[in-house]
């Protein structure tokens, strides 16, 4: 089984890659927070320089926008340049817009800083239809305590329930900002297992589903999948 962690916004790439290899990951999404074109270019140059063959380096870009319009504009700018486009959720308008947008791959923590799960049945249905995966971030639980943590767990559980009902896919990521935030694949999967998800489904959330997203996007970017989903064999 090949394990992927697709949201690692840390900047010390070498240390993170080394630790991820030791932990048994086959692929790691070194995530760049999109601010402007120049920084994105520099990030892509850094990724080209890494040149590791023992681990799959996935180019991810996170979009942390204040409004849905801003998010759409940013997605348009990065879509053709990175493997994975991730939108930071929290604002319900952004969650809903991201779920409707086929260019978005992952909607990260839709419950972030909210008093509800940040997703309803319509949003989840749209996410399933547009192949937008919902990403749950372990970092949110590591840095919250007591009452807040219990709310976060409750919201994650509700979102998972909706995802299962409407067959939307979901993944778990570490959200590590440095090596101390990284967790081994089975530790990530344990979050879902504790919330009542079966063992095989939990493992899919850290292996099969992220791998599928990466492969599909690389084919699209390589021109092997044309518009309308026609694939060149």
């Amino acid at each position: 089984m090949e394990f992927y962690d697709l949201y690692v916004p840390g900047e010390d790439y070498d240390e993170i890659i080394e630790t991820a290899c030791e932990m048994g990951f086959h692929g790691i999404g070194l995530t760049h927070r999109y601010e402007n074109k120049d920084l994105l270019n520099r990030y892509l140059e850094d990724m080209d320089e890494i040149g590791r063959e023992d681990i799959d380096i996935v180019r991810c870009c996170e979009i942390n926008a204040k409004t849905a319009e801003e998010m759409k504009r940013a997605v348009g700018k990065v879509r053709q340049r990175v493997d994975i486009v991730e939108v930071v959720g929290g604002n319900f308008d952004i969650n809903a817009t991201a779920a409707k947008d086929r260019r978005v791959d992952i909607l990260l923590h839709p419950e972030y800083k909210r008093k509800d799960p940040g997703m309803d049945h319509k949003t989840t249905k749209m996410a399933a239809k547009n192949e937008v995966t919902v990403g749950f971030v372990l970092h949110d639980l590591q840095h919250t305590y007591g009452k807040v943590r219990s709310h976060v767990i409750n919201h994650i559980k509700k979102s998972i329930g909706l995802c299962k009902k409407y067959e939307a896919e979901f993944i778990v990521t570490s959200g590590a900002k440095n090596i101390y935030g990284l967790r081994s694949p089975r530790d990530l999967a344990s979050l879902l297992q504790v919330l009542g998800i079966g063992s095989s489904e939990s493992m899919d959330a850290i292996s099969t589903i992220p791998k599928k997203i990466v492969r599909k996007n690389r084919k699209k970017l390589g021109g092997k999948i044309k518009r309308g989903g026609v694939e060149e064999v």
Partner: protein
Amino acid sequence: MSKPETLPSSLREKKRYVAFQILSEGEIDFGDLINALWSSILDLFGEVNTGEINFWLVKDAWKKESKRGLIKCNHKHVSEVRLAMALINRIGDSQVSIRSLGVSGTMKSARKKYFGEKDLSNFEK
């Protein structure tokens, strides 16, 4: 002082040993580790559920140099222990990451598999 007899194996509670390793800059004090693990598991699952998990940190198995150790728990609650470990980000004053190395049914096999300890079962003259 007399004590109760050991129960037959069919009546004993099934257990698992979770091997873990700590990634940290400085040294880890065993007392701080115990406190961090217990407070994490109690905060996350509460007293009733922690009782069911039957969590226990094995003191003799703690390797200070390699920062590896063993946790004993009920065989149905391994994922709870893993999550409680994954949510610890600080022990004492140092930033840490605890990762589980694997799960084993006996302490002997856990030591062999994850600590690289050898016994004399395959010894040849």
